[in-house]
């Protein structure tokens, strides 16, 4: 019985992670949308210190990676997170558009050296609706500031780097690429 549950959990995880993170933007299909976001952490994470905990058998230490919990509003997969990629650079997450175009964005996470044990989980509790016709949606640049070795939170702010994000998109896809800002609102309880 437990094996069945474990297998079902594993399978559901495997199925529920279709969102692909890209460090360069791609053109979405007709029923898809590409979210653009960036995550910064201040001060910089002492990665060399955490690398000492890494498996010595690994040749390279993975990069610290940010994840956004994004899902169709009301979906059962709300807790799953899509990688937005490395810190301090724009990442692109391609997702299927639900019929009502509504998304939940409950939290963002930072995995130091992409290690799930070294996680920083930041609730944002937001939701938004993708405007009709929008293919690329800028969610924002999220800046997490902390004060000590326990990553005690000082603030989590959203900075507007829309112009930079648009420039990056146009550099990759051409001058016709259009980007819109997500109208993020606090999720209803």
């Amino acid at each position, binding site marked *: 019985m*437990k094996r069945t549950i474990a297998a079902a959990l594993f399978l559901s995880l495997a199925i529920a992670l279709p969102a692909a993170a890209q460090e360069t933007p791609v053109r979405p299909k007709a029923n898809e949308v590409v979210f653009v976001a960036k995550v910064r952490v201040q001060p910089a994470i002492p990665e060399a210190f955490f690398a000492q905990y890494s498996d010595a058998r690994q040749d390279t230490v993975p990069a610290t990676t940010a994840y956004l919990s994004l899902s169709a509003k009301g979906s059962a997969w709300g807790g799953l997170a899509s990688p937005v990629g490395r810190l301090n650079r724009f990442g692109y997450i391609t997702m299927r558009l639900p019929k009502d175009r509504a998304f939940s964005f409950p939290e963002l996470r930072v995995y130091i050296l992409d290690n799930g044990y070294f996680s920083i989980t930041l609730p944002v509790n937001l939701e938004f609706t993708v405007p009709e016709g929008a293919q690329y949606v800028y969610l924002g640049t999220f800046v997490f500031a902390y004060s000590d070795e326990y990553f005690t*939170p000082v603030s989590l702010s959203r900075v507007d780097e829309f112009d930079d994000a648009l420039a990056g998109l146009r550099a990759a896809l051409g001058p016709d690429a259009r980007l819109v800002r997500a109208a993020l609102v606090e999720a209803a309880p």
Partner: protein
Amino acid sequence: MHGRSLAATLAIAALSLTILGSCVSIGPSTMPKGEIGSPGTHTLVYGYLGFHNVFGKRPMQYPRYIQLDPDAEPGLEYAIHPKYDGSFFLPPLPAGTSWKLLSFLEAGTNSTTVYQQGVMGRNAWDPRLEKPGLMYLGAFAWSAGPRAWAGEDDYSAWGIHPFPDDGYELAALEALLPQFAKTEWEPIIKARIKELEP
């Protein structure tokens, strides 16, 4: 989603415990071999870490602490349960270092649930070793809260909760004392036991 995954976790935990009965592996019961840090330079952290649910009160399984101060040596230490009663201690660790509960387990016969705590935030059960000597951390348990757990259906209430000291400090000191026999720690531990004894 959080509640849903927690519900699934709890269901698996309940199944595991039903099948397993009372005695599961809870981690090391003795200190790793080697030199023991001195009370002049090191801190001996002790307390109670439990896992309380409708099946009863058990020790937390394999609680593992990580050292987070980037200016000090890295370190990973399993809490030592000298007895099967939730009492625990950490091997004496250099004063000035910062430790956080990184994970613990709920191990069954076919499945193991890892409760990852992440590296963000300092809770009451995450000791910053300000000075050398004894440091009673407190009594904490994964539970639905200090009182209610049977019939509790608000899964969001489940987490690590502090418990008022109900003889936990004395029990922990008495349990760890034999491992510090004939060390510099022995008189310090005995003195504290004497203070606590009714």
